[in-house]
């Protein structure tokens, strides 16, 4: 102790005291401060983001970058929201098989929980359209189909055809057929505008109108009768003309040949 007090006037004594004080403060804080913040976030949302990040690193990062920032081969995913992930992965469009004018629909290789995890990770990158719930894309109105038909003809029919049978666009791109498309995916496509489809956000097409369009598309694909019998793909005069030329004229030619080839001579009958 004597040794210590003998040096109390040393020029570095103040520094030593300061170090002791700092150590004591830090130690007391570590002992008494609330401990929750230091623990790992183990909520379900956080776990999903964590799981999604791992799936993303394996399946998506080669094009979209490790943190979804985009690269020369894939766009940035900041702000696309979970609805875009649910649509693109849920319909099998992502991961893309190969680059091209348009990424086609194919078999989905992920489970819905994997998709939800990836969607949670992408949604955490920036705010965007959220995956809709069932009551968001199911209309309960009785006149939804007729209203949806009006909206479909104004907004969708130019590319997807009046019956939703799809159509061609420029340079190899096309608007796919809407038959057998999950109502959720139709709704998400309108929200997010996948690939070259323009988006129809709630500000210009409210949720209720999207429900009506979904109702019309479902009716058109499942219940709408064909007044003429054969729909021939609902593609209009092209398929009808082809059918007439090949099958109609073909049948007439076949009958004409049959009539001319069969003689009524008594010798052969």
């Amino acid at each position: 102790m004597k040794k210590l007090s003998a040096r109390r006037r040393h020029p570095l004594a103040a520094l030593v005291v300061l170090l002791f004080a700092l150590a004591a403060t830090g130690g007391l804080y570590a002992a008494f401060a609330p401990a929750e913040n230091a623990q790992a976030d183990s909520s379900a949302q956080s776990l999903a983001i964590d799981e999604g990040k791992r799936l993303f690193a394996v399946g998506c990062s080669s094009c979209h970058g490790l943190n979804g920032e985009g690269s020369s081969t894939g766009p940035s995913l900041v702000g696309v929201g979970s609805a875009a992930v649910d649509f693109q992965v849920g319909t099998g469009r992502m991961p893309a098989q190969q680059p091209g004018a348009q990424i086609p629909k194919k078999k989905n290789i992920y489970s819905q929980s994997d998709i939800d995890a990836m969607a949670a990770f992408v949604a955490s990158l920036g705010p965007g359209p959220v995956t809709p719930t069932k009551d968001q894309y199911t209309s309960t109105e009785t006149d939804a189909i007729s209203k949806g038909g009006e909206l479909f003809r104004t907004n969708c029919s130019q590319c997807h055809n009046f019956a939703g049978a799809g159509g061609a666009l420029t340079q190899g791109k096309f608007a796919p057929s809407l038959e057998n498309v999950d109502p959720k995916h139709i709704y998400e496509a309108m929200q997010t505008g996948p690939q070259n489809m323009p988006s129809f956000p709630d500000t210009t097409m409210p949720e209720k109108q999207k429900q009506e369009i979904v109702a019309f598309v479902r009716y058109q694909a499942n219940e709408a009768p064909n007044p003429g019998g054969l729909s021939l793909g609902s593609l209009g005069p092209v398929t009808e003309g082809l059918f007439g030329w090949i099958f109609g004229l073909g049948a007439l030619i076949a009958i004409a040949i049959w009539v001319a080839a069969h003689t009524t001579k008594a010798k052969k009958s």
Partner: protein
Amino acid sequence: MSDDKLPVAHDAAEGHGEAAVAENPFADPGLPPHEPRRTDIDERAAKRAERQVSLLFLVSMLATVGFIASYVSIDSDKIVYIFPLGHISALNFALGMTLGVALFCIGAGAVHWARTLMSDVELPAERHAIEADDETRADVIQQFKTGAAESGFGRRKMIRNTMIGSMALVPLSGVMLLRDLGPLPEKKLDRTDWNEATSDAPIRLVNMNTNEPMKPEDIVVGSLTFAKPGPSASRPAGLQESDEDFQEAIAKDALMLIRIQPNDIKDADSRDLGFEGVLAYSKICTHVGCPISLYEQQTHHALCPCHQSTFDLSDGARVIFGPAGHPLPQLKITTDASGYLVATGGFKHPVGPSFWERSE
């Protein structure tokens, strides 16, 4: 081919082929001997064929009656289920089936009649030159000259000239009938409802889906929105579908609104006409006036489904492919005091296809 089908062998078999072969190795074999049909030799078979033909014609009659009956009796809304076809219109099915049966039975009856009962004796018809012989031609020319001389056509020049005049004028009646295609459009195609807008009395852009005016922040990048004119002096309620001239008006007024990042807009004039990247283009193709809105949000190309005219909306709607002759007209838009998108004037260029009186 077996030898017995060749003319040489055939003729040799009959015993007098040697000379014919030397003269003409491909001699005309002539017609085969006529073979009677069963109906030619058996009267009962002929009667049966007659009854068959009559039955076909009778079925055709019944089908026609059925056609008329189904047209009158079946409700056009009625949908029925028919096995391989699915849910189809009962009226369409009945009309198609009865008319088809009626026509088919007439055809089948006629063919059956011709094949079993009408004469089937082969008749050779010699070919002749189409041209008449010299004697006939000389005779006709002589008759023509005599007729001309007797009518005095060459001598009485007044009659000749007035006749030629009257015949030359007759086609003008046909030309006059073309007037019914008119009247000429005058300035109607140059003006749209947007022309009523001024900076003092701007016209709001109204969303076609919601019938509500829009703010620039409603239009997000990559979206597509269709708009029509809102309230103006001559249309206090804005353009409504209940308006008598709605179809005529919307065919010129229809807008498509898109938003592009201002830096991505290549054409500076086009950027100035828009508002913070929101661009309002006419929806009417400048080729033959189809409504176009096949908008690709990544390339900013708009395609016309009729003849594939493609416009680059990021470059002043320049035509990059197809038969269209002009870029799509763009409407100058801004916002009013309440923040809603408005137009303060009409299109600079006429919308829609080219026409004779088009100002440029």
